[in-house]
Structure formats: structure tokens, C-alpha cells
């Protein structure tokens, strides 16, 4: 079964949205952080027990047994209940457990996914759970399947700093409004996003890679809408992509558009 990258939900209002699913590596790292936290908790218990031991050895051992047991079983349940589907590890890695229908987690779901972990751990090192998560469509381990939960990426998407990159520069492509409008219409979200990322991250690329990348992207946009030579003359590939990004992400005011006579 092919693994989906997102969990897609359709609300009763007819709105469709998607939530990116967590990958196996980020989940593994979150687990590693959680195990460290449990280890630290175990250390604290050890100190508490050491303080009680001189008073009553038997009682101290009993308290230690209950606390270790409570910590190992209750850590995941307690944290996911308090932080709405997040443990310390998940919070650090930007992950969250959610209901597979996008609803708020129910306490019984938290309890079941954490109890079935006992089977996911078999025969060791999360083999059963790991295999189920890798081959399952939504990356669910058995505990998630039984509880009807999925682990998603909870990182808040950032808004692009577009204004700083393209604003205030002359854009010759805007000289021909009807072609500008056609370009905006034909550019899809994926290619627009790709072009924007290329512009925003140009300094991270080597000069040769930058030339190749912008040539390929500019060639694609030129194939979508053909501007007359008088507005593209002397325009390099990178500047062409910048101008396209400016058009796609920063449409001019409607009034300004109306005042310009069509050209070409």
C-alpha cells in the first residue's frame, strides 16, 4: 500500500484541508527524546527513593516500583492528555497525535494507543509498530490503528518574506497586463511555490547550480506564456523568475490594472 504524505479531511461545510503526516525519522527522534525524558524521570525517582530508604527500606522499594511503573506506562498518556496529543519529544520535533478524522483526541484514544504500544514494541525496538507504520497508508502503528489516530506534523507554516525579495523593483512583464493575467492563471501552486523557494533560497545554491535551476524554471514559465521580445530583452533567467514570482504572488491593485490600456 502506498504511503500518503497528508491526511485529507473534508469538513461538513465542504472545506477540504490536508495535514502533513509525520515521517518515520521524526517519529523515531521524538521517541528517543521521550525515552531520555523517562530516563530523567527515573533518575528523579531514584533520588526520592534514596531519601526515603533510611526511614523504611520496604516502603521505599514499593514506592520505587509503583513510580517506575507509573512513569513508563503513564508518561505517554499523561503528556498526550495534557498537551493535546503531544509529548515532550513530539513537541520538540513539531509532531502531534490527532484523530484520523481530524477531530480532537478523546481520552480513550490516548489510553488505547499507549496500551497497544506493548504489542508495537514486539519483539523489540518497535519492530511490529515500525513495520506497520512504514507499510500503512497513513503511517499508523498498531496502537494508532486501534485508537483511530495518526501522528501529524504540527509545525505552524511560516509566511514567506516575499516583500523583501521582490518589492520595489521594476517588472517589465507587468507592461502587458493581459499576458500578466494569463501567466497568473496558468501558473499552478506547485510551480509557483517552487519558483518562490528558488528566489528565497538562491544564496544557499552554488553559482553553477543556481544558473541551471533558474534556467530550467525560466524556460518552463516562458513555455506557459510567451511575452514579446521588447519586454524580455536583456532579462536574465533569474530576473525572469523573480518577475514571474512578483506577478503571481503580488497582483497589482485592481484599479491600476483597469487604467492601463492593453499592449501587444
Amino acid at each position, binding site marked *: 500500500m502506498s504511503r500518503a504524505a497528508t491526511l485529507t479531511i473534508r*469538513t461538513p461545510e465542504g472545506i477540504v484541508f490536508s495535514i502533513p503526516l509525520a515521517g518515520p525519522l521524526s517519529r523515531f527522534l521524538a521517541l528517543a527524546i521521550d525515552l531520555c525524558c523517562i530516563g530523567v524521570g527515573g533518575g528523579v525517582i531514584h533520588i526520592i527513593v534514596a531519601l526515603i530508604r533510611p526511614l523504611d527500606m520496604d*516502603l521505599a522499594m514499593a*514506592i520505587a*516500583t509503583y513510580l517506575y511503573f507509573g512513569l513508563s506506562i503513564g508518561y505517554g498518556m499523561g503528556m498526550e492528555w495534557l498537551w*493535546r496529543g503531544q509529548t515532550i519529544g513530539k513537541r520538540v520535533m513539531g509532531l502531534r497525535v490527532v484523530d484520523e478524522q481530524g*477531530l480532537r483526541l*478523546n481520552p480513550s484514544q490516548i*489510553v488505547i494507543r499507549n496500551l497497544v504500544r506493548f504489542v508495537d514494541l514486539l519483539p523489540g525496538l518497535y519492530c511490529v509498530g515500525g513495520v506497520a507504520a512504514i507499510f500503512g497508508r497513513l503511517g499508523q502503528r498498531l496502537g494508532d490503528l486501534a485508537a483511530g489516530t495518526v501522528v501529524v506534523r504540527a509545525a505552524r507554516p511560516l509566511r514567506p518574506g516575499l516583500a523583501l525579495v521582490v518589492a520595489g523593483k521594476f517588472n517589465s512583464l507587468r507592461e502587458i497586463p493581459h499576458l500578466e493575467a494569463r501567466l497568473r492563471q496558468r501558473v499552478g501552486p506547485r510551480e509557483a511555490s517552487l519558483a518562490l523557494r528558488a528566489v528565497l533560497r538562491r544564496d544557499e545554491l552554488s553559482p553553477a547550480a543556481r544558473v541551471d535551476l533558474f534556467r530550467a524554471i525560466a524556460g518552463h514559465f516562458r513555455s506557459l506564456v510567451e511575452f514579446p521580445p521588447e519586454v524580455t530583452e536583456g532579462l536574465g533567467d533569474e530576473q525572469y523568475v523573480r518577475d514571474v514570482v512578483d506577478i503571481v504572488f*503580488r497582483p497589482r491593485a485592481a484599479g491600476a490594472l483597469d487604467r492601463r490600456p492593453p499592449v501587444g
Partner: protein
Amino acid sequence: MILDVERFLAAERPLWDELEGRLRRLEDDAAFRPGVADLRRLHYLYERASADLARLATFASQPEIRAHLESLVSRAYGEIHETRLTAARFAPWRYLTVTFPRAFRRRRAAFAAAIVCTVAGALFGGLALLLDDGARDTLLPFSHLQQHPGARVAEAEGAIADELKGSRTSFSAFLSTHNTRVAIFCLALGVTWGLGTAILLFANGVLLGAVVVDYVRAGQTPFLVGWLLPHGAVEIPAIVMAGQAGLALAGALIGWNDSEALRPRLRRVGPDLMALSAGIAVLLLWAGFVESFLSQYHEPVIPYAVKIAFGAVEMVGLILFLGLAGRRG
């Protein structure tokens, strides 16, 4: 179509930020209960953000804003559309004395199936020991069970020193946590369509049946009953109840004679599994306490009649509790 993205952002972003703030408050504080006015405002902001998302969907070239809005709408959707009942305040006493026995009764078919697995295992274990005494070491793999019953009874009744003195509380804690782990495992194995749960219950039954036959044929029935009944009257039903929970989970996964889809079936069984888990944990805590403080002491310290009577009272009490508690209201 949105023609002026900047104007659109300038108009809507304050509302998105307000929605973000309200959601963060809800997410960061599980105990926070918003008032009616807060909920109305949250609902309005959710609908507004949903409408913005729908408008953006017709304007394809805004992936970042769309991702941001999708994140907001998905979080708000989870808060607003969750209609499953959750208690405003968790009341542990009511949960254990009303919710738990009700869940037990609702899943009585699974309990009957768990009893069948255990009794089948006990019959197998008992018969195997009767028919093949050479299999004793295999059927009773624990060192304290491999001793001949007569020798064990003589040793236990002749003990002068209290072997558990100074370690009763820690022994009780060990027993409770160990048995709870076994119970959780039994429940969790329900995810193997019940096969793992059935095997575990059967194996538990084999051990129980072999022990019973071993002591009965050695003429040590009063010792056996006096030893097992005080804690076993609670511990054995608790493990069977863990099997009940596992088989209930398996039933929801398989969906025999159930026209509902998998997801609703699992949603329906979830609260019952949680209630059973909580009840089982408390029962095993009690069983561990009794096993450490009472079961390990034999005649002449405690007469068997007293121990058997105690166990019988516990068993009757448990049956009455599971059968009658929480029927009203």
C-alpha cells in the same frame, strides 16, 4: 477570485491571529472550559477562516497562505466538530463504580469468550498432567511450583520465621505491577484479531489447571484453596477481564454481524476498553496487596477456613458489584 492578495491579507490576518490565539489557549490548557460567548466567537472565526480557505482554493498561487490557513482550520475543526461525550470533570469514584461495571456488562459476550479460552486451557493443563506426569516440569515451569505439593505444604506450614518480613509492601508492589503488565499485554494482543489474547488466556488456563490437579491429587486441596482463593478470587477474574477487553477490541476490528464500518466500531469500543483497563488496574492492585499480606501465610498462622471465607466473600462481592453496580441512573 482574490485579485488583491495584500488587501485580503490585511483584512483577514487579524482574524486569523485571533483564531490562532484562541486555539493555542485551548490546546495549552486541557482543563480550560470556554464560555458560550467564547465558543460563539471561536465558531465564527473558524467559519471565516474556512471561507477564506475556500476563496484561496480558487486562486491557486498562494501555497504558503493556504498552508497556514489549512493549519488553522484543521485545528479549529478538531475543537469544534468533536461531538463525542466527555465528562466535564473526571470523577474517579463514579468512573470505577458506575462506568466500569457498565462497560463490563456491555461486553459480557467477550467476557464469556475469555472464560471459554481460560477454562479450555485449564482443562487441557489438568488433563495433560493427569495423563502424562512426565510433562510436569513443562506444565509448571516455575521453581516454587515444581516442588512436590506435599513437601511445599509441609515447608509452608512448618515455617517459623516470616520470610516476607520487611518486604511485604515491596512484594505487593511487584505483584501488582507485574500482573498489570500481563493484563495490558493481554488487552493489547486484541489487535492481533484476538488470536494473541486467546493464546495468552489459554496458556494462563493451562498453568492454573495443572496447579489445581497437582495439589488436588496430592490431597492438598484445603491448602490450595486457602492459598489461591484470597487473591485469585480477584486476580483471575481481572486477567480474564483483560482478555475480555482484548477480545472486545478484536470484535471491533473484525466486525462480525456488525453493519457499521471499522472506524465507528473502534470509536464505540474505545471508551469501554478504557473503563475496563481502569477497573482491572484497581482490582490487580488489591489482588497484589492480598497476595502479599494474606495469601502467603498458612496454617497455623491463619486458619484455612478464614482464608477461604475471605476469598469467597471477595468473589461474591465482585460478582455482585459487576452485576449490579451502576444499574440505576
